[in-house]
């Protein structure tokens, strides 16, 4: 999901782990989450990554696609039929779920996510979390999901409807998005069960991710979904939170959609069957190796189709938005092959992009497997690259969320953060320095926006924490998205594009169709880039690591002969200080490193004769003094002249003039004066 949340920081909440789970019993980890006690799962090490690797790595084998797995391990398969009533804005669903216990322990309960209930009332966890941003206002029309029955068929036992005994709410908590379903008997490890399910959805008016606006329908988080059971028998179940929502097992989704004939459909997975009967359009979409399914229906969709890098791309857009569709297709023409080359081949046949109208904007900027939503006004000027950024970002989620199935609630930086880095890297490689804004001579890069945004919240909270532990949406946005991306971008600029992109590519390929955590991520970076880089990453992500390089002193003194008493050749000689033979200058530059992160940096020294000399500092230690005698005086010094350390907390102190001297601001004066002249002419009588 693409967020642009920029608000002030308030507080920090740490993630706290509880004791190991009892056999077959859900024991979610509890953390202080603002004003509510909502259980949240975390990965194996919630507060910091373990030093040792938890998953064997595979070295260079994953630097290309040869070792990529063809398919995911099917754990949860869904076969559903969904019937839309576009007037009442309801979906009737029925079908079956096939689920396998992949843990090492028998389970005596199931956890079902009923996320549409997040929009049922203001007492849901979603609406209680006052983090600001989109989705904060209660919808004008509520939405919910009612499960009618859930019939368990396990082995030779008689089918039994387990829904009447389900626990929809916890005591004292009105949230109904996380249901516990006790089972009549345990499901053993590797045992498969079938659940026949019938449910009814009432869609809300578009809010955050899903809903309707007039005849437009975006249907996400719409069916009962089995939570993920971790290998150790712990259920990773959690309510629908404001800032994160994804974590599930892979499986095959076979979904038949039934809508009025006039409606056009877009959905996860390729269309395998389609017919019109009795004034209804019926389409069947089947997709393996995914962990979610979303769809849209509207009678006004315009359609553009193109095959890009072997992938059948369908773009659904409103009338009058053709220019946006062209820009989004152009983005995919760059993005699909670029991401496939760097993070592993896109394994699916199709990708559907949905561009909602602005009045349904809250359903834009969202990712589902093989199905993404973009957004923006049809009037967006070409120099404002928001449509391209959103499209590339959501497409990138096919890798960082889709193919690498991290727990977004527990470790959002592995999902949104890495994807944000992939986005700014891709935009930069594609559109250069004006990758976010390229208007009237002003070029602003996506990376620069992330760098400044990431620095805004760096002292408030750690990056690596659960999504619902963030105090505000602004903290979440600036840290999870921007800070992670900036840290990665700094590594890329300092240590080189090739090794960093190789490390991220190796991670993405090695853990395709798996559910890695921070340990695995850090281990791959240590494997490729070494322990210093891994330690830097750990400090930056887990310990609010920061850095500020400073030019703290630049001086140039005319060289003098040292005066005083000197013992030479057995004689004590008095030497008067004075002009040194041969003249010249004694130059000195002091550079400091403040903060807890360290990176090697260059220091450029500009001399009075116009020449420049470049010095290198390995970044170790807290300061470095460069002193030398030369024929020319030093005029100024600049640390990190190539802007490699984009996480630098303050760029203004990266430059220093000799003896306090500095340059003027002719560029600023020229431009601002011109702009003011134009403004004066606009308002002048």
């Amino acid at each position, binding site marked *: 999901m693409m967020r642009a949340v920029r608000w002030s920081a308030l507080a920090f909440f740490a993630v706290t782990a509880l004791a190991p789970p009892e056999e077959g019993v859900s024991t979610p980890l509890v953390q202080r989450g603002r004003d509510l006690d909502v259980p949240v799962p975390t990965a194996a090490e919630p507060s910091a990554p373990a030093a040792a690797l938890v998953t064997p790595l595979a070295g260079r084998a994953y630097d290309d696609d040869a070792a990529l797995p063809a398919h995911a391990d099917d754990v949860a398969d869904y076969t559903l039929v969904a019937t839309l009533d576009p007037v009442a804005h309801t979906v009737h669903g029925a079908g079956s779920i096939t689920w396998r216990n992949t843990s090492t322990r028998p389970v005596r309960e199931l956890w079902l996510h009923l996320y549409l209930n997040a929009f049922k009332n203001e007492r849901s966890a979603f609406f209680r979390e006052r983090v600001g941003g989109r989705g904060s206002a209660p919808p004008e029309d509520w939405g919910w999901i009612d499960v009618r029955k859930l019939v368990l068929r396990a082995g030779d036992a008689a089918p039994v409807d387990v829904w009447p005994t389900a626990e929809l709410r916890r005591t004292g908590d009105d949230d109904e998005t996380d249901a516990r379903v006790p089972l009549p008997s345990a499901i053993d490890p590797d045992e498969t069960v079938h659940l026949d399910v019938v449910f009814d959805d009432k869609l809300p008016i578009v809010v955050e991710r899903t809903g309707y606006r007039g005849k437009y329908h975006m249907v996400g988080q719409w069916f009962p979904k089995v939570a993920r059971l971790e290998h150790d028998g712990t259920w990773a179940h959690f309510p629908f939170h404001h800032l994160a929502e994804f974590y599930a097992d892979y499986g095959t989704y076979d979904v038949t959609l039934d809508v009025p004939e006039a409606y056009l459909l877009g959905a996860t997975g390729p269309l395998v069957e389609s017919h019109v009967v009795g004034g209804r359009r019926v389409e069947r979409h089947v997709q393996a190796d995914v962990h979610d399914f979303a769809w849209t229906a509207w009678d006004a969709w315009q359609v553009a189709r193109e095959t890009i890098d072997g992938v059948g791309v369908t773009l659904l857009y*409103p*009338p009058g938005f053709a220019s946006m569709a062209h820009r989004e297709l152009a983005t995919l023409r760059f993005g699909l092959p670029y991401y496939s080359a760097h993070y592993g081949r896109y394994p699916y046949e199709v990708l559907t992009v949905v561009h909602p109208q602005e009045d349904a904007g809250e359903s834009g900027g969202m990712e589902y497997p093989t199905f993404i939503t973009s957004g923006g006004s049809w009037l967006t000027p070409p120099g404002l690259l928001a449509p391209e950024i959103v499209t590339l970002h959501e497409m990138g989620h096919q890798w960082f969320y889709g193919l690498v199935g991290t727990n977004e609630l527990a470790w959002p930086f592995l999902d949104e953060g890495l994807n944000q880095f992939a986005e700014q890297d891709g935009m930069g490689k594609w559109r250069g320095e004006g990758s976010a804004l390229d208007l009237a*001579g*002003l070029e602003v*890069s996506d990376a620069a926006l992330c760098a400044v945004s990431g*620095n805004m919240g760096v002292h408030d909270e750690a990056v690596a924490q659960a999504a619902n532990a963030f105090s505000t949406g602004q903290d979440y946005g600036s840290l999870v998205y921007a800070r992670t991306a900036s840290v990665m971008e700094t590594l890329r600029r300092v240590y080189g594009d090739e090794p960093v992109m190789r490390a991220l590519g190796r991670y993405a390929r090695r853990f395709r169709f798996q559910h890695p955590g921070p340990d695995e991520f850090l281990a791959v970076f240590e494997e490729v880039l070494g322990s210093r880089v891994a330690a830097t990453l750990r400090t930056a992500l887990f310990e609010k690591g920061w850095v500020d390089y400073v030019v703290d002193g630049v001086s140039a003194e005319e060289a003098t002969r040292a005066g005083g008493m000197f013992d030479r050749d057995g004689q004590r000689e008095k030497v008067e200080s004075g002009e040194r033979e041969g003249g010249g200058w004694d130059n000195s530059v002091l550079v400091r490193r403040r903060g807890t992160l360290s990176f090697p940096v260059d220091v450029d020294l500009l001399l009075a004769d116009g020449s420049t000399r470049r010095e290198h500092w390995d970044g170790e230690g807290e300061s470095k003094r460069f002193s030398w005698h030369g024929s020319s005086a030093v005029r100024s010094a600049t640390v990190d002249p190539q802007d490699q350390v984009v996480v630098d907390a303050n760029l203004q102190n990266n430059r220093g003039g000799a003896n306090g001297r500095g340059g003027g601001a002719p560029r600023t004066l020229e431009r601002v004066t011109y702009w003011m002249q134009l403004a004066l002419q606009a308002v*002048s009588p």
Partner: protein
Amino acid sequence: MTDAGLAYGASDPSLAVARPADELVLLMPQAMRARRHPRAIAAMWAWETVLALLASGPAAGLARAAWRGDQPLWEAGGHALLDWLWHDLHGVRAALSGAEVVLVLSTVAGLVPMAALMAALTYARRDRQAAAFVQCIAAGLRAFPPMALLLVVAGLLQGLVLVAGGFLAVAVEGWSHARLGEARAQQVEGLVFLLVLAVAAQTGVLHDLARASVVRFRVTGMRALGLGARTLRRSPIVLGWSWAWRALASLAPVLAAAAVAGKLGGHGGFDLVFLFVLHQSVVVVRVALRTSWMARALRAVDGTSSKAMAQVGAVALLGS
């Protein structure tokens, strides 16, 4: 310099003897041309430049203090620029507030140089020289009270048109949204608002014609408004277009300069000097086009209203 032969009464020898050489005489309409007054245009440019420097000085000073040379601020990518805006947000806000004050004050104070410019277009000295700077400023000061009244009246009128038109455009968008879809509805909204802008622009034309009447006939603001309305009523399309083509033409150099600035980037040295010259050329061209329109407005009110003014006893010759 001007052609005094195109001035009312300039060829009357008795008047030439009776009055001093630096007395101002009213020019014939065909002599009221912007191209005859490059010094007046330059003076107007200088006025705007001084105000702009007043407004931009704090921002430049801020950049100088923070960066010891502002080269990084204008480098492609914008990292240093964003970092500066973040760290010095309060300073930047203060600089912006100062600029806003300058803009507001210039809206009122600018009436004097505007009227002086129009006086330079309207009058010449009896000795065939262009009106002196001091004479023009004096004329501008004399015209200030009625011009200020016109500014208030026309501002209110334009504001009313824009607000009402804005509501109308939004209502039309809301009404057509479901039928036409968002993009088409917004396009209709845009069309409606363009029409509203045309009405507001025509109000601006009326305002300028009234100003021309103030300078040309030395009448009160409300009387000038009546004369302006009479002039506009006579040929609304011709006068509207006369304003519009100059307004559109004044956008072209801005866009062209923006494209060139994009190519030049944030370099210093010759590139910066070139950019400065280019930008100032744009400003001068826009001043010239505005002056050209004011001359057109003066000719229009002169042609329409001389007869009417004769009936009310207005003079064509003015003492200094």
